[in-house]
């Protein structure tokens, strides 16, 4: 199992795409820039929605906020995920073994799970608290988790360079 992972990681690292990105002066920082731009939209939109759940901008219907913001959050994954994977490829073995990277992946999974639970539970009854009323405790909790998780994901990402 361990040997399989090592083989897979070094294969990834020596793939033509990984070598190209690693050795190119400008491509690597360009991909980093695209990754940042992507998560600015992903996390920014998610956080704005979280703030709505926590009681800011109560005149704004939650369903309208969701329709606009969460669509952009989801779309931005098309930019964030491939660029993140390309950056990972260039140092796959080192990254995979890095505890900060492991924590980051775990936190991203938790953030996804949190969003899923929110949509399957609180959001199902959104018409009851769509506008000008208090958000139910479950939705507020989801918003607090989301804010904390995404902040931690970004912290881990930045820490990768210094750990």
């Amino acid at each position, binding site marked *: 199992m361990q040997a399989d992972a090592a083989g897979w990681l070094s294969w990834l690292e020596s793939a033509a795409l990984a070598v190209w*990105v*690693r050795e*190119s*002066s400008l491509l690597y*920082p360009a991909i980093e820039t695209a990754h940042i731009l992507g998560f600015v939209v992903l996390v920014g939109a998610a956080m704005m929605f979280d703030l709505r759940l926590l*009681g*800011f901008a109560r005149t704004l219907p939650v369903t309208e906020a969701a329709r606009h913001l969460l669509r952009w959050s989801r779309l931005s994954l098309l930019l964030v995920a491939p660029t993140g994977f390309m950056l990972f490829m260039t140092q796959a073995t080192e990254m995979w073994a890095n505890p900060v990277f492991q924590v980051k992946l775990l936190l991203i999974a938790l953030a996804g799970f949190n969003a899923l639970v929110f949509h399957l539970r609180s959001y199902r009854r959104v018409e009851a608290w769509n506008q000008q009323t208090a958000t139910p405790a479950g939705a507020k909790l989801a918003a607090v988790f989301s804010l904390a998780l995404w902040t931690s994901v970004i*912290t881990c990402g930045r820490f990768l360079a*210094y750990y």
Partner: protein
Amino acid sequence: MQRRTLHITQKWTVAIIVIGIAFVGTALAHHGWSEYDANKTMNLTGVIREYGYDNPHGVVRLQAEGEGGKTWLVVLAPPARMDRRGLAREMLKAGTTATVVGYPHRKNGDEMRAERIRIADKIVELR
């Protein structure tokens, strides 16, 4: 003007965000060089055994002069910066003699980060 006053949940949200940003700010005050001990300046001359002109940082394996000299992993700078400052990929080829000034890693005993490198008569600042 009920809308002017912050709801209790909003107050808590603002407080948590402020604390969060303060924490992240402190965390980011660390930077890449903090892993290396700047109080122990090293001056190392040796022969390049291997090199990587790679992102995010270029590296060389530099074997110190003398019989059975220790081989150090010397962390340089991003390729774009090295290229711009005139440290071309070709200059780092195996067999080349180089002198680096830098600092040892606090934990990894054979790793150092170079402040500058000298190859032949060319000195390149890496920070």
